[in-house]
């Protein structure tokens, strides 16, 4: 039983880490703000989801598990909203640059 | 709670007065923020009276018992808790502060005849915060409380510079703030290191640890260096004085008086405590000459700068930077490495210089403010005939100038004679030379203002009336500086109250 849950945890967390790494790579290598944002939010949201999923079996109590899910939800909310804000700023400055040219 | 166990460390009877001196001005902020803006001034004046009474009571109590006043906050003795203490020197500082603050309040009061000249409500709130912070600096024993007090002082003092909201004063205020923050950050770092080395923040306990341990810890050496640089930045000691002239000269007269007379004295008082109480003899012997060299630089360079100013307020501001230099000459002369520096004539001389500078400088800034108000400018070149227009203000300026020059009768005279005596006795001729040369420079810049004002005709034309009450306040402060000239030329016992116990007794 414990071996199985540990296996699930390791698999999920490792997969999550891969997503984080991919997102970070995208952040560093992609050419402009919008594509970077795309890499960052997609990868990080899935990555965090996988890590939370992997840690759920390790949670001592139901409350702890609930807290982890709540954290995931809050991060989703925040990163979604922030990404949209950043995207709008990026679009606006891109338009401004075009107008100047 | 176990008060029985923790209340062991003694608060003296009436120790609560120390807490009151700190919190009463703060309590005043509550009605000031809730009442109508035009009532703020009345609340402030009421509190000035109340605060003055509290400080008076502290002074009477300490003088009557001949012992320091102690208070342990919440009954939690150091090192876990924190204590307040007023010894002879602190009481002198508290009284000096109270006199200047109350006088400034009376000076800044709205004239019924000219209500448009009223100070904004913010001035009165900042005045209360400033007073509380200064009182805390003079009575706190805990290094971190002192840090908080210094920051309170900064936040109260900086906006006073730019009350008129002009670009020039805002610029001066920002520069002042950055210097002050730089100073407090270094002080905080030093505090952290001392706690890491000794496990307490209480100054008397730290002093005992330092004296018990023999060779100085590296942490102590670094902490002293950091605190000295930090406090020198806050006190505008040469060569960190560049922020002072624009800030002190740009502020309204009442604010300049507070800044020049009181605010820069707080870091200097802390330096005295750090070097005399905390450093321990070997380090004090090494550090004192360095402080004195910086002081000598200030006396010389800032004195010369004051001579070259064309505007009266800038001249007075540079003279502040020069005069605080004298205070640093005190360190080697008082033999702070010795057994009882507070019994030396240089200790008394230093304290007297600090106090008489406060009174005379406050008087001079007020007089300068009145002159600027009456003439519409403060260009010294156009002061011809000023003596006829504003005799009382010019007289107050001149009397204040006596202290700066070190001419009798004035507190500055007695102070400088005492420092000179100590320098000659110890055959430190270069210090004696600095004191004499500084006096000549001061004579030069004071007479540059007074002589044309009194003996030259023409030029000055009054464009506005100034109130006799304000002139009276300036004159009153100048007279206090003169009266200090009648203290006897010997160490004053009051200044030694409570100091021996600080270092002598075991915890």
């Amino acid at each position: 039983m414990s071996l199985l849950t540990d296996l699930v945890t390791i698999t999920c967390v490792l997969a999550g880490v891969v997503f984080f790494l991919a997102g970070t790579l995208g952040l560093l290598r992609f050419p402009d703000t919008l594509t970077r944002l795309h890499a960052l939010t997609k990868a990080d949201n899935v990555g965090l989801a996988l890590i939370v999923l992997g840690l759920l079996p390790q949670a001592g109590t139901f409350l702890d598990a609930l807290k982890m899910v709540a954290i995931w939800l809050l991060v989703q909310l925040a990163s979604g909203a922030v990404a949209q804000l950043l995207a709008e700023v990026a679009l606006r400055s891109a338009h401004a640059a075009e107008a100047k040219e | 709670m176990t008060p029985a166990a923790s209340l062991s460390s003694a608060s003296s009877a009436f120790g609560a007065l120390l807490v009151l001196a700190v919190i009463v001005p703060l309590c005043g902020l509550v009605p000031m923020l809730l009442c109508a803006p035009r009532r703020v001034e009345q609340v402030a004046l009421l509190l000035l009276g109340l605060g003055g009474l509290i400080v008076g009571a502290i002074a009477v109590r300490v003088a009557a018992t001949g012992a320091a006043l102690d208070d342990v906050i919440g009954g939690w003795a150091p090192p876990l808790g924190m204590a307040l203490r007023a010894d002879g020197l602190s009481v002198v500082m508290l009284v000096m502060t109270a006199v200047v603050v109350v006088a400034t309040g009376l000076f800044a009061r709205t004239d019924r005849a000219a209500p448009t000249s009223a100070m904004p409500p913010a001035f009165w709130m900042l005045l209360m915060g400033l007073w509380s912070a200064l009182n805390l600096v003079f009575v706190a024993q805990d290094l971190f409380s002192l840090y908080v007090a210094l920051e309170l002082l900064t936040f109260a003092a900086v906006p006073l510079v730019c009350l008129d909201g002009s670009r020039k004063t805002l610029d001066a205020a920002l520069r002042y703030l950055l210097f002050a923050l730089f100073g407090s950050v270094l002080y905080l770092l030093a505090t952290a290191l001392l706690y890491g080395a000794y496990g307490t923040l209480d100054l008397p306990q730290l002093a005992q640890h330092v004296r018990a341990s023999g060779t100085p810890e590296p942490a102590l050496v670094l902490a002293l260096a950091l605190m000295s640089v930090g406090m020198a930045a806050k006190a505008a000691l040469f060569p960190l004085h560049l922020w002072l002239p624009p800030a002190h000269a740009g502020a309204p007269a009442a604010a300049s008086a507070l800044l020049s007379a009181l605010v820069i004295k707080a870091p200097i008082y802390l330096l005295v405590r750090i070097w005399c109480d905390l450093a321990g003899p070997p380090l004090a012997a090494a550090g004192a000459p360095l402080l004195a060299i910086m002081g000598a630089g200030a006396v010389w360079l800032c004195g010369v700068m004051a001579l070259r100013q064309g505007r009266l307020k800038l001249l007075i501001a540079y003279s502040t930077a020069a005069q605080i230099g004298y205070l640093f000459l005190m360190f080697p002369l008082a033999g702070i490495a010795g057994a009882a520096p507070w019994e030396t004539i240089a200790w008394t001389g230093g304290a007297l210089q600090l106090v008489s500078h406060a009174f005379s400088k406050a008087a001079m800034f007020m007089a300068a403010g009145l002159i600027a108000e009456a003439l519409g400018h403060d260009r010294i070149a156009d002061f011809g005939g000023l003596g006829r227009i504003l005799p009382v203000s010019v007289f107050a300026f001149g009397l204040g100038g006596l202290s700066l020059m070190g001419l009798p009768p004035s507190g500055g005279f007695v102070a400088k004679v005492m420092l000179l005596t100590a320098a000659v006795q110890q055959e430190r001729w270069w210090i004696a030379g600095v004191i004499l040369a500084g006096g000549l420079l001061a004579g030069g810049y004071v007479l540059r203002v007074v002589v044309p004002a009194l003996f030259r005709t023409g030029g000055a034309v009054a464009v506005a009336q100034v109130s006799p009450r304000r002139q009276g306040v300036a004159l009153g402060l100048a007279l206090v500086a003169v009266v200090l000239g009648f203290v006897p030329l010997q160490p004053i016992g009051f200044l030694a109250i409570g100091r021996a116990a600080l270092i002598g007794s075991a915890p």
Partner: protein
Amino acid sequence: MSGSFSLSVFGLAGAGLVAIGLFGLIVQGAAFRKILAFNLLGGGIFLLMGVIARRGAAAGFGGDPVPQALVITGIVVAFSATALAVALLLRLQDAGEQNSAAVDDRDRAARQGDA
């Protein structure tokens, strides 16, 4: 926490942060960057206090609570200082944008009208 190694590492990081902040405070020309540098310097000092607190772990506590409490106070004070400095800087900016003499006169008039 693997004992003294980690403490040394954070001690060095704190000292480094202090040095970086100090450098910025001295050489940066713009007030805005000086304010940032002041915060770096403060952060380094707090970190050193954290190391000192951690060294004093005893009585079942992970660290000496006294320096930890001091840091909390210090962070709040540093924030107040930053807010004041930024407000001053922005006000200076506003004052510079307009004809300063005219602004001063209007300010004074506003003050007098309200008093």
